[in-house]
């Protein structure tokens, strides 16, 4: 069972809350102070991506964040319910080609780039029932 679990409506204004909660729980779990900035950024990126996927597919379900304290490690799993057969697949019906679209698409790729650049232990999964990003950090406590 998750140490702390968070569910929030897929709205941009709640991503900051998820960052703050994740950082607070990570600190308590014994994640190194120097790494907390990275935890904050990585969980923000994962939640931003999930919010974008839910909004693009008009999914009313909340975004899930599970913060799991384990022996010598701390994991964060951000789950979405946006169905796709392959990661990064274009959502059906989304019009391709406008400038804003290209920027948004770039942001999604950049979000994943930031996560993989920040976190050594990261697992990205996606299937027809949604996807998740699981990130794990060592703890000292």
């Amino acid at each position: 069972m998750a140490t702390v679990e968070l569910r929030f409506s897929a709205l941009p204004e709640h991503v900051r809350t998820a960052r703050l909660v994740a950082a607070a729980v990570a600190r308590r779990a014994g994640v190194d102070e120097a790494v907390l900035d990275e935890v904050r950024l990585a969980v923000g990126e994962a939640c931003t991506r999930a919010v974008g996927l839910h909004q693009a597919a008009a999914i009313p379900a909340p975004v899930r964040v599970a913060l799991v304290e384990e022996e010598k490690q701390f994991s964060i799993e951000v789950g979405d319910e946006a169905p796709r057969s392959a990661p990064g697949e274009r959502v059906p019906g989304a019009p391709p080609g406008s400038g804003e679209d290209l920027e948004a698409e770039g942001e999604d790729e950049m979000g994943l780039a930031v996560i993989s650049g920040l976190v050594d232990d990261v697992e990205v999964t996606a299937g027809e029932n949604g996807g998740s990003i699981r990130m794990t950090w060592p703890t000292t406590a």
Partner: protein
Amino acid sequence: MDLSLSTRTVGDRTVVEVGGEIDVYTAPKLREQLVELVNDGSFHLVVDMERVDFLDSTGLGVLVGGLKRVRAHEGSLRLVCNQERILKIFRITGLTEVFPIHTSVDEAVAATD
């Protein structure tokens, strides 16, 4: 913490001072500001990020979008940043190669290359 924005003109440059957190919620305000400046004919922008507490990829996307817009008018977009945790995000995404990053507004305003 919300996003704060203020602009001022220094010679032919427009300095945009940004403070607070740039994320998926606040980045649209920065995008609007940059679009408005370009639409009003300011093509040489200096974005001062010294008071930014948090920046994510949404913010990076807005800056890249701003760069694209000023370049369409043969303009420039320079950043001012000395904060290691912000600089790190530019490094891991390779964007240090895309943006000129300066240590002070004076340096950015004086830069010509």
